[in-house]
């Protein structure tokens, strides 16, 4: 129970981080969205057996976390959440792919193990970029950026409501769970039947609340379109520098395997 409360508050924290004022927070959100997108494409497009060439990409989240003054432990805990999901996908690989790619001593390393690790590295890299993007930009600003980048407005509004809805849902969830906790006197639960009615109850309450929110929106002249306050933020020199700098680095790192080159430099066996 405390865990639900805790992780929920944790989630709000991500929103609070976006309110900080650091050089990366101040950048126009479009620059950050596009750079993150480019980062993701570069990482995801690597060969399935690639690991070493992806590692230098860690520099992007590391640098942003430092400049953005983000709490390392907190961001780490958010990233760790994706690991089980990545493993769920990746662990099938060693079962199907038993081609021997290398040997360490007398140990055969199957391709499946390598691609599994590769998936894990990919997941960690992209998740960290995404979480850091939210932490230095804020979800609403991301929606706004997507809209300015010509994503249909209704879609942007939907995304924003989805985000708000998550808060509504978790809020109701916490309350329902608390009420249930108090009545089960700390026992583990009431069984699956009651769980079903609990979920039904939760959906009903969320629906009612969503309806009341809609009512409040109508009361203030809502007609299907969320207008933004259009804060002064424009795409200037800083944004251009940020984007071009990072994107050229990503392309370089994508084309050349930096760790291998570096290793070659020391052992004198340049390819």
């Amino acid at each position, binding site marked *: 129970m405390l865990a639900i409360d805790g992780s929920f508050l944790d989630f*709000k924290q991500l*929103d*609070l981080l976006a*309110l900080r004022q650091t050089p990366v927070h101040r950048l126009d959100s479009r620059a950050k969205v596009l750079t993150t997108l480019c980062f993701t494409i570069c990482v995801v497009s690597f060969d399935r057996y690639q690991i070493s060439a992806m590692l230098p990409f860690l520099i992007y989240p590391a640098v942003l976390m430092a400049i953005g003054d983000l709490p390392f432990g907190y961001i780490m805990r958010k990233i760790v959440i994706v690991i089980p999901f990545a493993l769920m996908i990746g662990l099938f690989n060693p079962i199907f792919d038993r081609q021997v790619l290398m040997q360490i001593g007398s140990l055969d390393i199957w391709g499946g193990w390598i691609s599994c690790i590769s998936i894990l590295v990919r997941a960690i890299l992209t998740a960290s970029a995404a979480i850091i993007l939210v932490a230095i930009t*804020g*979800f*609403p600003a991301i929606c706004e950026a997507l809209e300015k980048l010509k994503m249909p407005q209704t879609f942007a509004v939907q995304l*924003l409501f989805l985000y*708000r809805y998550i*808060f509504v849902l978790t*809020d109701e969830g916490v309350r329902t769970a608390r009420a249930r906790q108090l009545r089960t006197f700390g026992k583990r639960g009431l069984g699956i039947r009651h769980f079903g009615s609990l979920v039904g109850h939760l959906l009903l309450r969320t629906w009612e*609340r969503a309806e*009341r*929110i809609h*009512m*409040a*929106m*109508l*009361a*203030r*002249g*809502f*007609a299907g379109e*969320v*207008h*933004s*306050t*259009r804060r002064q933020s424009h795409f200037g020199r800083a944004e251009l520098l940020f984007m071009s700098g990072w994107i050229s680095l990503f392309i370089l790192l994508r084309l050349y395997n930096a760790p291998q080159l570096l290793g070659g430099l020391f052992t004198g066996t340049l390819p």
Partner: protein
Amino acid sequence: MSHHIVHVKNLQHTYPDETVALRDVSFLIHHGESVGIIGANGAGKSTLLLHLNGYLSATSGEIIIGDDQLSKETLPEIRRTVGMVFQDPEDQLFMPTVYDDVAFGPLNLGLDPDEVETRVMEALQRVEAVELRNKPPYHLSGGEKKRVAIATVLSMLPEILVLDEPTNGLDPQARRQLIALLQAFHHTRIVTSHDLDMVLELCERTIVLHEGKVMADGPTLDIFNNEELLKTCRLEKPFAMQACPVCSPDKRPLVSQPPLVPPHSNKPHDHEH
């Protein structure tokens, strides 16, 4: 709209599940009046308020706001004129920051950005919440949420303010601050509550609802002195008008004139005498 009157005529409302929530409700509220609508839980207060800005439509009867009868055509203008503050501020605050939330209404009115900015800042100043403007609403305290919810309505420059149980769930100090705030407004005010002490301070006139019917309509003091009426409507005399059990154990009614509650004090009276 020269006279911002609220005229409710023979209003009847039956919910789809056949609950009759309002039975033949009629009253006329004049410009600048401050009216309390009191009644126990389920008396129909919220249902009544939801009619005033057209969210619920009457089963029968009519509503006139200013010069306009409530109808599909007049709805947008009436929603601007009638600023509705809902019971649970969580329902009213849905934008990412306080600023965006207060700007939501003016932006829907199609005002230009400078005008929006001015209105937002004025509204926030009115409720003493300027420093909260960049915070996400769900991080605020109960009292702050309530004040911001009021600002979201003030920014539309309504002529009539409607508040559903505004002091519900507030701690004494937040309640006190809110009452002082509302006292300073010159709008026509309609406030529902079962916090009769608040009604006593805020409203010169009171309408009593009971099971969907208007039981009484008159000066607040007269109504609060009518113990029989309050009892049948499942209400209790405000503490400020009750005999104080500590200093007058003989239960002699202490106050029959307007209660002398200084605007800054929290309690009906202190025990210094």
